[in-house]
């Protein structure tokens, strides 16, 4: 963990070179070139169907581009992703975490202690033996974040992780995101919540109709958006 | 996962149990007919043989045709069937070295108690069969190439009729199943006496014709040849063969009764 913090600014930049994506003849992502670098919190904004999730899945390697290149400049860093609806195994909260450690070949004797540590950290210690899938939505998302934490990622992707949660749960997720960031993790997160973006973002990528229209620092984005679509979005005139 | 482990362990234990069955060599496999098995004859005589020799006899009861096939493939150590012509051919073909008469019973004709074909007072079996064909009364045939089926076909031939038409129903079943079906259809059928006497579901069927010498049903024991079957337990099978023909074996057959009626008549020479 400490080692990672000191080299955090050296996380390999991720380049999108004219990346496009098509599915069954529909072009879902227009040729896009963006770069994610440093240890920033980049929020991807835009209405539903703009291509936010697509961009993240391409970045994380869950999808292959139809054209162009997704390229890490240097060694591919450790990554994790938290989905809109958490996908948890049909096991206890604790076992969901020890599973990840087993995948990462952590010696069996260390798994339980490390998992319990992280559960404690995310306020889930009391629920360790509960089946993960009967937890509340907020608890499930926290467990998904705890699982990501165990991976010690250099880059964390979050796909609208708070869209189905109540305010208290949203707060917990945002705190966790900041905790990751303070540990030196690059954050790439999709949201359509303007307030959330104002609270978290270092810079913003604004997407509309399968195109990345802007990539600007957050304060500039909210004060003087380039595109009329972004301006309309900020005024709350674009339905999502 | 624990459940899985338990299941696998149980499986392995049980497999070793099957293996122990294989290891036990003091038995022979006897291919025989459903008529002998269904009547209960083997239950009565095998314990006596086992007591005398320590050899167990495992009976696979099938039609005579299938019994020949099992022996031909080397899956039986001994044969006890009732198709003298077929048995002699089996010896001639080199699958068996010896065939001996063991016992006989007889075939009978059963049918609906009101006897629509009027066979009750026939002079001969041939006449009874001719009457059934003439009146086109429903007749249930085994149709399975068993010894009984082969004997039945010879009867039609002797009667000089071709068994054909809607009234003649080939079932392709064993004796008991054929009796069940005949009872259900209220049809005539041709059966060995032993199965008939032991049969518990006759409904309206009754014994209508018996006693003609042509209905004689001879059982023979065959000593199989090792030539086609290197696994044959020849010594054990030989003991069984000899015991069947011995005074003890013949007496055990004579002593077997169902409902106070002797079903098999020993006639070893």
């Amino acid at each position, binding site marked *: 963990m400490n080692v990672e913090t000191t080299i955090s600014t050296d996380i390999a930049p991720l380049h999108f070179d004219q990346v496009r994506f098509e599915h069954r003849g529909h072009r879902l992502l227009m040729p896009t070139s963006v770069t994610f670098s440093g240890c920033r919190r980049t929020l991807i904004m835009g209405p539903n169907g703009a291509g936010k999730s697509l961009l993240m*899945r391409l970045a*994380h390697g*869950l999808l292959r581009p139809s054209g162009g290149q997704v390229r890490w400049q240097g060694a591919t860093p450790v*990554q*994790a992703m938290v*989905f809109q609806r958490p*996908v948890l*195994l*049909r*096991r*206890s909260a604790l076992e969901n975490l020890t*599973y*990840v450690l087993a*995948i990462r070949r952590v010696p069996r004797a260390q798994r339980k202690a490390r998992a319990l540590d992280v559960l404690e950290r995310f306020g889930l210690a009391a629920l360790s033996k*509960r*089946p*993960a*899938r*009967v937890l509340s939505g907020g608890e499930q998302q926290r467990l998904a974040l705890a699982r990501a934490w165990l*991976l010690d990622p250099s880059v964390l992707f979050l796909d609208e992780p708070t869209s189905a949660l109540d305010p208290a749960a949203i707060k917990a997720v945002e705190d966790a995101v900041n905790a990751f960031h303070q540990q030196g993790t690059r954050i790439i997160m999709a949201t359509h919540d303007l307030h959330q973006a104002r609270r978290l973002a270092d810079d913003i990528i604004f997407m509309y109709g399968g195109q990345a229209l802007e990539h600007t620092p957050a304060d500039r984005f909210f004060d003087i958006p380039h595109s009329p679509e972004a301006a309309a979005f900020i005024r709350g005139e674009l339905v999502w | *996962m624990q459940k899985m482990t338990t*299941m*696998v362990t*149980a*499986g392995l234990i*049980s*497999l070793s*149990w*099957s*293996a122990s*069955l*294989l290891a036990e060599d003091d038995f022979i*496999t006897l291919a025989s007919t*459903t008529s002998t*098995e*269904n009547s209960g004859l*083997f*239950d009565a005589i095998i314990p006596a043989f086992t007591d005398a020799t320590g050899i167990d006899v*495992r*009976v*696979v*009861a099938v039609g005579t045709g299938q019994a020949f096939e099992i022996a*031909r*493939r*080397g*899956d039986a150590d001994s044969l006890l069937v009732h198709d003298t012509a077929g048995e002699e051919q089996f010896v001639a073909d080199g699958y068996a070295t010896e065939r001996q008469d063991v016992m006989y019973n007889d075939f009978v004709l059963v049918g609906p108690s009101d006897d629509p074909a009027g066979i009750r007072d026939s002079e001969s079996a041939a006449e009874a069969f001719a009457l059934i064909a003439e009146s086109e009364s429903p007749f249930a045939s085994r149709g399975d190439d068993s010894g009984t089926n082969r004997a039945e076909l010879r009867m039609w031939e002797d009667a000089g009729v071709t068994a054909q038409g809607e009234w003649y129903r080939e079932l392709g079943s*064993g*004796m*008991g*199943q054929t*009796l*069940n079906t005949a*009872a259900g259809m209220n049809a005539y059928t041709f059966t060995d006496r032993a199965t008939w006497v*032991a*049969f*518990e*579901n*006759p409904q309206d069927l009754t014994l209508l014709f018996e006693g003609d010498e042509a209905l004689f049903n001879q059982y023979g024991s065959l000593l199989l040849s090792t030539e086609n*079957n290197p*696994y044959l337990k020849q010594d054990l099978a030989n003991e069984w063969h000899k015991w069947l023909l011995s005074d003890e074996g013949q007496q055990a057959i004579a002593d077997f009764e169902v409902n106070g009626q002797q079903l098999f008549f020993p006639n070893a020479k």
Partner: protein
Amino acid sequence: MSASDNPFYTALTLILGMDHRLFDIVALSLQVSLIAVALASLLALPLGAALALWRFPGRNIVIVMLNALMGLPPVVAGLCVYLLLSRAGPLGHWGLLFTPGAMVVAQVILVLPIIAALTRQQIESLHQEYAEQLHSLGVRPLRMIPTLLWDARFGLLTVILAGFGRASAEVGAVMIVGGNIDGVTRVMTTSIVLETSKGNLPLALGLGIILLSLVTLINALAHVVSEMAKRRLG
């Protein structure tokens, strides 16, 4: 109908009498079918899961064949095993024909396609849910198989029970390869056939009632165990 003609009465007297031979027959039936289902599961669960996860040329043909084999007539399976294990067959030197081992082999062949085909369906739908997450966690395909099998365990229990139902109910295969030998390979279903052919219908039906009760009992047990586990694990 007198009392002795009533199959329920017959079944009851058989059970209460704890007849030694009946007990052996019941035990052998359960033993053969349970071993067959355990062995078939051992092979078919990973096979079904692998088929759900891997895309390879001819995959659809394999799936269609597997689905079709679910309807394999027991007699045909029995005949194939008979020809295989017969002294004149390729595996004749094993000496398995007319033993419980041969019956296990035949039932494995009958049950394996059922468990594999149904497992594939279950695992495929679970995989749709898990695929992105497991990929994100860096789980390799080979490692996904045990993960998905374990997480689908409650559905798979039903699949295994379906296999057990097929195994314990069939008669065509065990009759041919077992030979229905008294005290050696005689099981519930072959006894029922035998008693029917003797015209002893109440006894045959009584045995049928006992068989059905046993299968019901096993299903009920599995149901209770799975419900308890579900409540505990979600």
